[in-house]
């Protein structure tokens, strides 16, 4: 029953050049259980042997990839029906990225409606060719993730919690590391774009670094105003330096709000170094329950949507199965008891006697229905008028039942002959019930020329009388 077992959850973090398997712990901690150079993971055939056991035996809930692996597009779209929206996005993405056939499986969207503007779609999708290769490799190793996201989306979720009016304002975030600085821009609570800037090394003059940062931020603000058609309302800074906020405020010539200390940030600088911006998040923030934006393989998502139905099907099925099995057992026992009881009554002798009795009744009934020639002969004799005598008679009572008669009628003329014949048939029909009427054309008549006595002529009559 492995399908019901809950495995330990883990995440996979991908930076520009490396891939790390990270285990999340209940106490809001995490450990890195293994890592590979990204190219080695993608192209080394032996990599499957190098995966640690703990990674193999876990649920790979989340894959965090660099921000630039994702792209965001907005489309004007009237309908909000899923059956229309999803094929539209699939078609559009495939048309825009012909070289990425799998792009149709990796997107997600939300509906946009800003004020009186036309309704639209906010579509996020994977655009980096490596991302598809990576997913395919993870799937091959049975490590494919349930969800895929980027640090920017996790930041979006965190800022939503920290800043009360995050959804109403245009926000920028500067996240400073020793050599790299990440710039994130959000338009009314939606991530718009991010940039990664490599600043001159720590030994360089801080003024020079600030100048570079100022330049990059200003460039990005310009880009933001083009993309969002709005100006940034607030800029937040997350940095280890004590005076960084003040210095950046002065350089930019506008207020910069200090976001540090983050409170939930992982203090382990080694992890932060290896995982980049992801190292700033807590295990709780990365857990499956946190509601940040992420995309899933379309087929997996469909599967997840079916999961409650499947669970209900399994539970109801199991309940029914146990009820039916119980009923089956009860019926089996009851049937056995019934058979024993009936077996006592069903004595072969009794059955035999009854069968013989039934057969005997059938035979006797058939015998009783069988006509007897004696009775037929007697009835014909009784039907004979005075002037008629029989020469030949054949009575058959087997397959073809009937009487063939050849008789002589003495009559003074045809009229009397007809009268006698009528009387004869009348009596025959009366005395032999069910006999079929004889048609005139079925009667053979013959005048016996030589036989004339007292002025009466002999007529030879031959006919067949059908019997029931």
């Amino acid at each position, binding site marked *: 029953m*492995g*399908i019901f077992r809950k495995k330990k959850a883990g995440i996979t973090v991908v930076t520009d050049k490396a891939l790390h398997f990270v285990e999340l712990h209940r106490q809001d901690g995490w450990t890195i259980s293994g890592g590979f150079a990204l190219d080695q993971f993608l192209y080394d055939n032996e990599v499957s042997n190098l995966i640690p056991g703990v990674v193999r035996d876990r649920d790979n809930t989340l894959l965090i990839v660099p921000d630039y692996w994702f792209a965001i597009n907005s489309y004007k779209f009237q309908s909000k029906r899923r059956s229309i929206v999803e094929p539209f996005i699939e078609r559009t993405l495939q048309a825009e990225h012909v070289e990425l056939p799998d792009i149709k499986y990796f997107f997600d969207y939300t509906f946009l409606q800003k004020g009186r503007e036309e309704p639209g779609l906010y579509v996020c999708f994977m655009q980096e060719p490596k991302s598809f290769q990576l997913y395919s490799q993870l799937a091959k190793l*049975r490590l*494919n993730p*349930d969800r895929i996201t980027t640090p920017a989306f996790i930041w979006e979720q965190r800022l939503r919690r920290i800043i009360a009016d995050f959804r109403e304002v245009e926000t920028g975030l500067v996240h400073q590391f020793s050599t790299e600085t990440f710039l994130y821009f959000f338009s009314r609570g939606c991530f718009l774009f991010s940039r990664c800037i490599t600043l001159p090394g720590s030994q360089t003059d801080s003024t020079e670094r600030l100048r570079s940062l100022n330049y990059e931020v200003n460039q990005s603000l310009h880009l933001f105003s083009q993309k969002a058609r709005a100006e940034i309302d607030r800029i937040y800074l997350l940095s280890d330096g004590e005076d960084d906020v003040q210095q950046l405020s002065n350089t930019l010539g506008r207020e910069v709000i200090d976001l540090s200390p983050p409170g939930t940030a992982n203090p382990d600088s080694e992890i932060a170094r290896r995982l980049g911006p992801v190292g700033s998040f807590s295990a709780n923030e990365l857990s499956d329950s946190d509601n940040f934006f992420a995309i899933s393989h379309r*087929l*997996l998502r469909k*599967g*997840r949507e*079916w*999961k409650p139905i*499947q*669970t209900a*099907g*399994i539970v109801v*099925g*199991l309940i*029914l*199965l146990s009820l*039916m*099995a119980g*009923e*089956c057992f009860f*019926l*089996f026992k*009851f*049937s056995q008891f*019934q*058979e024993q*009881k*009936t077996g006592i*009554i*069903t004595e072969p002798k*009794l059955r035999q*006697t*009854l069968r*013989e*009795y039934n*057969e*005997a009744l059938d*035979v*006797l009934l058939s*015998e009783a229905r*069988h006509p*007897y*020639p*004696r009775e037929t*002969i*007697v009835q014909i*004799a009784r039907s004979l008028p005075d002037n008629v*005598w*029989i*020469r*030949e*008679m*054949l*009575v*058959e*009572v*087997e397959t073809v039942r009937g009487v063939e008669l050849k008789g002589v009628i003495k009559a003074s003329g045809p009229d009397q002959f007809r009268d006698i014949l009528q009387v004869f048939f009348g009596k025959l029909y009366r005395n032999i019930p069910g006999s079929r009427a004889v048609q005139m054309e079925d009667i053979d008549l013959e005048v016996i020329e030589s036989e004339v006595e007292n002025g009466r002529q002999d007529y030879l009559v031959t006919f067949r009388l059908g019997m029931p």
Partner: protein
Amino acid sequence: MKGEIRKRWGAISVIWAGVILLTWSNVNSIEKIIRAKENAGLLRTEEKFLADNSKDVSEVLKKRESLRESVVGLKFGLLALESRLRDLAEKHGLTGLNFDCHAGRAGEESKRVNISFRGSLREAVDWLGTIRCDYKYIQVARVKIVVGSPGEDGKFQVSLNYRYRPSCSEDNPTFKGSI
């Protein structure tokens, strides 16, 4: 995830197939029990019927037995039949009795016998009546009467079915006691 989904569908299919199978089996069992109950009721009725009507039942069985003559073999049966019919014809004043029959195959339970004789219609009718009453194992199938002129004796040709039950095979007769 995909494998798990497939496994779940597999589990659902197996479970529901089991449910359907058990439902079908249970319906069958219930029908069987109902039939057995009806059968038991019927048997009880039949048992009671046999107990209450044992006399009538044995009478019916006896009557049925009388429709066939138990013979050691067909040839012996036919010989005895011819003898009996000759005696009966003589008793009824019929003359010139001719008995015609070919021995049939073993296993047949009815044999066609043709008889011809001369006599008056009344005598012949009486003879037929006696056969009907006293010789239940003889079934008259066909009677042909030819009368030359009024007052003359008629010529009768009668076809009979002689129904018998061999008590042992004719091909290898075994006699127990005296014939």
